[in-house]
């Protein structure tokens, strides 16, 4: 049976994982909501955040926090430039958008694989140390990650609902044509959203590689989880994505603790397929 300590562990690990998933999937759903782009390179931006930060850490000899900030910012730039060069020309063609972003993701995967190898690399902790809660040892790092992800999600929410630019993004996602008629510069909004979306992915990549490990295969894995979460939460709903992230986070850590990691992937994904059959529009989704 599961004792209290294990339950506490599942809850704490579940929120950490859920927080990271929430960052990944809210970025994914944000760009989808605004531009209807299914960005298959989102998982690549996630790992690029971790690997670029590692590169800067090693080459510039700076502290982990500064190199993470530079790394995450550059991921945003890469995504914005990538959008302008590769996605914008085929924006009207749904099939080609998917194919191009998927190919981009696999190129980044191969580049990382060739440069760093297939083994996982961890990013140094921003804060080390352990606290004891209810008799179990918990790394402070995990609590920091939880705080960072909550803070970022709150900032994202404030940006979208309180600032003019954020309101423009919301307006564009609700009715792109009307937004164009109102004189919005849609292209600029898309580039900006792509930047924000990739920054969220890059940040979650850095956080991920502190508790788990950065690994080129995480690109597709994270992408699949982002898909699953946005389907569960409802495509295009940031709120739905965040709720779904924590649901998946808890299921994943729960099954991992009890049955092992192989089972966790299987169970989490099968549950998503079942939910999809019962409620295809997801928890907060609207039918197209």
């Amino acid at each position, binding site marked *: 049976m599961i004792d209290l300590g294990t339950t506490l562990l599942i809850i704490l690990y579940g929120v950490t994982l859920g927080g990271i998933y929430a960052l990944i999937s809210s970025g994914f759903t944000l760009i*989808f909501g605004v531009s209807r782009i*299914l960005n*298959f390179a989102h998982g690549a931006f996630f790992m690029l955040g971790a690997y670029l930060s590692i590169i800067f850490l090693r080459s510039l000899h700076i502290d982990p926090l500064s190199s993470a900030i530079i790394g995450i910012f550059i991921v945003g730039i890469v995504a914005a430039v990538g959008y302008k060069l*590769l996605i914008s*020309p*085929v924006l009207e*063609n*749904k*099939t*080609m958008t*998917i*194919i*191009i972003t*998927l*190919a*981009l993701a*696999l*190129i980044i995967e*191969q*580049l990382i694989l*060739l*440069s760093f190898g297939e083994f996982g690399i961890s990013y140094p902790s921003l804060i080390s140390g352990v606290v004891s809660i209810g008799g179990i040892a918990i790394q402070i790092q995990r609590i920091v990650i939880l705080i960072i992800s909550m803070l970022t999600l709150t900032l994202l929410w404030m940006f979208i609902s309180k600032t003019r630019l954020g309101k423009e993004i919301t307006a564009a996602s609700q009715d792109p044509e009307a937004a164009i008629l109102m004189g919005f510069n849609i292209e600029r909004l898309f580039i900006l959203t792509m930047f924000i979306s990739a920054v969220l992915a890059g940040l979650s990549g850095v956080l991920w590689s502190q508790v788990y490990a950065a690994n080129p295969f995480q690109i*597709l*894995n994270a*992408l*699949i989880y982002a*898909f*699953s979460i*946005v*389907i569960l939460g409802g*495509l295009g709903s940031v709120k739905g994505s965040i709720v779904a992230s924590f649901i998946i986070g808890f299921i994943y850590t729960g099954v991992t603790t009890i049955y092992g990691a*192989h*089972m966790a*992937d*299987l169970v989490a*994904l*099968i549950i*998503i*397929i079942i939910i*999809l*059959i019962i409620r*295809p*529009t997801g928890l907060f989704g609207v*039918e*197209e």
Partner: protein
Amino acid sequence: MKRILWKPTMSEIGYLIAFLGLMGIVPVFAPSALLYILGLTFIFIILSVSWDIMVGYTGEVNLGHTVFIGIGGYITALLNVPTRLVDTPFSFIMSLPKLPIFITIILGGIGAALFGLLIGAVTLRLKGWYFALVTAILPLIFIKTTLVFSSVFGGEEGFSIGLENLIARTTVGKYYISLIALVVCLLIMYGIANSKIGLTFKAIREESELAESLGIDIFKYKVIAISISSFFGGIGGALMVHYRGTISPDLYDIPLMLLIILAVVIGGLGTVIGPILGGFLIYILKYWILKGYFMTLIPYWLPINDDIILYSLLIVIALIAPHGLWNKIKKLYVSI
């Protein structure tokens, strides 16, 4: 009477005979290593064209075609090595008489088609992106199943089906059998694509609202398309297993999916002929040219491999010729 299949024109029959004649004499002069790759290329073309039936003709992006390929492969492999099913609900298959390979390959196709029907019935009701997202998730689930139930599926390494279950013992024999399989599958798929059903698929892709207002049940036709597409995907996967003599999760995996996408996009979505050309080009390029000569030219310190070259090629083609080479060739032909 409704026309179910198309009636071939004289020029189409001419092209077919020319293709058969050309491919028929290749074994006379080609080295055995090339022959082996060509035989696999034929199967790969079946996979590419079957993907095109769904994606090119209805416009729904199927990113999980490898799931159907893998299902076809694992069904035929397990039916031929039923001892792996011991201690499973399917262990009764061990006591049944062994079916001929030909039948188990067809059963692989049927199993894949049934799964395709199920997935289509669940996801195609919703317009938009759900089909692409769900099919993108599926390969990962199926790869996981091979690892979790490794006593049956053989885990990461897969398992061997034994020499007696190969489609032929010699490379030349394999070559001819996969050529025949290709021609049979292509005739059926080309026939469907040019029949009334194929035209309905195209109508759905081009003007889905207009098609709906004309009383065409879009959902039904998309489910038909995915069933046909997954059937031939399953057949292709099963053939691949009996060609190579082994099965492993790579049949489910993303690199194969990307290779298929690349072949179809380069050839031209929704054309059948395009994916045939694209399939030849890409498979030979990857396994003969890039793996053989080309990679030795790249300096070791440059982080580039054959996959990066192929994926970059895919992006370039998608940007400059999203309608593929076959449509470009046809346009040139018309303008002359």
